[in-house]
């Protein structure tokens, strides 16, 4: 599985530590934030594949705001919300705002890792699509310039041929003169 860079946002120190340990053990790179403000700073400074955020946090910046900030800064960042059963309606609302998914507390780690694997797969597909697109663009640009050069050269050659043909059909000059003039046209 692709290693993801993950930001964990939770005001509960126990959950924060637990998530950090489990995710690091699974070879993901992890940053943690204890509230929305710290999360905002980290989001501005780093790019994350995934933000794993508690929905309800004290202060002005809750989970929904973290979601909005993360998406605003980089719409490729996937956001997974952690929510108590009582606030599932809010979590569903958040999905409409672009959250990838939500997990109910207490966190089931099997479920979490399954979600992360799906996200990692999706991101690696997106990455190869971008690589392909780039390779295609490079090839296309190269082909375009080759074709355009050929197009111009062919047109010049055609023009030369037409001139030589006119010359050959000219009955007012001698064959010797035709040859001399033809060589002149061709080597011009």
């Amino acid at each position, binding site marked *: 599985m692709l290693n993801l860079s993950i930001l964990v946002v939770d005001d509960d120190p126990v959950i924060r530590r637990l998530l950090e340990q489990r995710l690091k053990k699974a070879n993901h790179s992890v940053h943690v934030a204890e509230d929305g403000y710290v999360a905002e700073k980290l989001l501005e400074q780093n790019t994350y594949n995934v933000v794993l955020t508690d929905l309800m946090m004290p202060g002005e910046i809750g989970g929904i705001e973290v979601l909005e900030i993360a998406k605003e800064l980089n719409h490729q960042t996937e956001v997974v919300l952690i929510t108590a059963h009582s606030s599932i309606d809010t979590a569903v609302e958040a999905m409409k705002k672009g959250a990838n998914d939500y997990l109910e507390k207490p966190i089931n780690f099997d479920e979490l890792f399954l979600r992360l694997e799906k996200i990692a797969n999706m991101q690696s597909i997106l990455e190869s699509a971008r690589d392909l697109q780039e390779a295609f663009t490079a090839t296309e640009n190269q082909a375009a310039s080759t*074709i355009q050069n050929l197009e111009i050269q062919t047109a010049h050659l055609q023009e030369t041929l037409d001139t030589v043909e006119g010359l050959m059909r000219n009955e007012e000059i001698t064959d010797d003169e035709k040859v001399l003039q033809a060589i002149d046209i061709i080597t011009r």
Partner: protein
Amino acid sequence: MIKIAPAELKIIAQYIHAISGIYLDQSKSYLFETRLSSIAEANGCKSYQELCVKSKRDATKKLERQIVDAISTNETLFFRDKGPFELLQHKILPEVIDARSAKSSLRVPIKIWSAASSTGQELYSIAIVAKELLKNASNYSLTLLGTDISDSAVTQASYGKYNKFEIERGLDRKFLQKYFSLVGDSWKIKDEIRAMVRFKKLNLMLPFSALGKFDIIFCRNVAIYFTLEDRKKLFNKLADSLADDGYLVIGSTESLTGVCPRFVPKRHLRSIFYQKK
């Protein structure tokens, strides 16, 4: 997904060629399957041959339209390849304006055609260039026409609404802010640009001399789907539809060598365009 039978391939390929000019290699059976299977199922057909028969019999042509929509590749983006639009701005439009102003003392008529406009990005890019260049638009009588064989593409083009993925491709932020407004989570072209253009359905395989003569024709990335024979016919008709001193722009990897001797390629900076001999 309904599987395509080898015997059906030729029949379907021929039918699609007949209705759209699009030539699909019979080795690409997956293409027929992925693009036509859901239409066949929705219309209660058990095979692709049955779908063809049903479509031929359908006097309303609804099924034919659906097949064309599904089979045509509408891939496009704003300011695709950049070069042609710089060409338009720095060479073609100024030259056309010079040539036409000399003839007419009233409003200068300029006719531009995007001959396979898909979902409209090409013609809107042209319109934006024209708008930026011709500050005093009331001195000109601009006709910007976009045509395409696909009904759904023409509908989206007319609507001028694009999702964030379509918008992000090729469009400068400054043009996005200036000429589009956010509607829900999509972007809609502003009326000042929308009012400059017109879209309609047209099959390039059929005669189109009724459209009159154009000063500038963009016919990009559509002839690649046609056979050499059809391409020859198409560019010959385009030559008839182009003013004697008009300009033709084709796709960046397309060539008219061996296709239409009536056009001569000319280079300007990193792009080429064609004019009549």
